[in-house]
């Protein structure tokens, strides 16, 4: 976790990005595990997902100027690499296929959300 570590090490429970805050970077998990949680309007925090090495988060900030939609915190000791928005967009301009990996993950997430909505509707009908 020390010698060959890339990125920044976060302690267990430490917030990496916070829901409602602005941001202009995305992050890629390099080691350990992070938890994605979202606070509902009544203030209750809900677990959304765990992400592991190779997974990324905060990518929406690269494409739109909105506040963070969820909080991501270290679940145990985690190592996370920050990706600069400007550098990433510059590279995507030179190599548009770089965005394919991002699109693939975002597509998986939409598929997962659709399944969640269906499940939610079924349980409330």
């Amino acid at each position, binding site marked *: *976790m020390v*010698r*060959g*570590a*890339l*990125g*920044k090490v976060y302690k267990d429970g430490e917030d990496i990005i916070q829901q409602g805050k602005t941001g202009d970077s995305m992050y*890629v998990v*390099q*080691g350990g595990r992070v938890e994605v949680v979202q606070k509902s309007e009544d203030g209750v925090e809900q677990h959304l997902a765990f992400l592991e*090495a*190779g997974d*990324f988060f905060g990518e929406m900030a690269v494409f739109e100027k909105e506040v963070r939609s969820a909080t991501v915190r270290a679940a145990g000791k985690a190592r996370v*690499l*920050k*990706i*600069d928005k400007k*550098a*990433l967009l510059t*590279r995507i301009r*030179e*190599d548009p*296929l*770089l965005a394919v*990996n*991002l699109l693939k993950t975002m597509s998986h997430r939409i598929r997962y959300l659709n399944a969640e909505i269906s499940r939610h509707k079924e349980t409330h009908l």
Partner: protein
Amino acid sequence: MKLSPPTSVADSFSSIVEDDDLDFNLRDGSRVAVVGGGPAGSFFSYFLLKMANAIDLDIEVDIFEPRAFQYCGPAGCNHCGGIVSESLVQILATEGIVLPERVVQRGVESYVVHMDVGDVSIESPVHEQRIAALYRGNGPREGGDAPLESFDGYLQGMATDSGANVVRKLITDVESRGGLPYLKFADGQAESYDLVAVAAGVNSNFINMLDDLTSEFEPPKTTRGYICEFKSTEKEIHRILGKSVHVFLLDIPRFEFAAIIPKGQFATVVMVGDDLDQELVHAFLNDPVVRRTFPTDTTPCVCSCSPLINLGARKRPYADRVVMIGDSGITRLYKDGIGAAFRTGKAAATTAVFHGVSKKDFEKHYWPTCRNIVNDNRVGKVMFATNAIMKNSRLTRRAMLGMASKEQAKDGAKPHMSSLLWNMFTGSAPYVEMFRGTLHPGFIYNLLLSVSGSLWPKSNKKQIKRKVA
């Protein structure tokens, strides 16, 4: 209105594949030879197979690499300083490629610039370890007990996991038969391929075998490098060098550039210059500035080499069914050779899968990526020439140190000189971007102020740390 049926990702990709020049398109069963299994060859193979798979194209990829990266010393080494730049680390992560801790020997979080007039430590702009110091092979001689894995071996593993074959045959000649490249091997056998990707670097004589395919390959300009590995304990290397790459701007005759890179229980000394010889290496290692940073008498040299280093561009790094990538074709001047291997390898793979493998295809779709690097290198030459002038004068060395020190002392100050030094040494930004930074009125004003201040210097030998942005 009738809606068309939904299309898959593969269908979408298929629609952009050009259908002209059919003779030069890769088809199911096409065979691709990749000569050289270093980063350029592995990146090319990985992306070629990944993109071919996306459009349901079934091709065969053979990587010809005589080295076995599990061996220590020259048998498994590709002779390189071994730095993966900040920008490449981020791009790899975006591609879903996470460099494992056993491959990264040291995550670098700062560069320390050493001069006779003082030192300055420049930290990563985001306080993260975003530069990887690693071994291309399995480490130096006497490194058998070190817990490390070869970077080239790791990338080759990615390529073989995607379906590439590694072939340990020695290629003895290349011929053109019926318009196809024909590789001849030392065992007397021969095989034809639809495309040959040359990723053999500049230290191989394979390129001389391509005369039968084209006579247009002019060799790139090269210079000589010197790489030496010093062994100690991991604790001692960390105590001396920390998590920093140490670079030296010294006024030694014929000296151009040198760096010391910590890697676990080893430290890699890298020197670059047209006029490198034992005398210059000795003068550098015994310079008082180097000795106070890195006492080489307590850390013996266990492995060394003097590879050729590509200084720029090969004219026309392509022909019908042949493409040159990485150091064999185009690379960045002095810096980020692995980044250039990634960019050229991926651009060549994209061209081969989506456009074709003719000279015309490479000219239209591959050359623009190479041209960007070539144009940036032109600016880089100006930057390095200016740096050479500045490092050879005590006054300007003092001015550079003074300017960086002032930026560090003042909260909120724009880090003009710190950013320039960071980008020059890490290779994180294009040279054009660095050059633009030097035209900023703030940079020029502060540099002139610092030069005039250096005429009457105060003591500024203390080492200061601060972020660059």
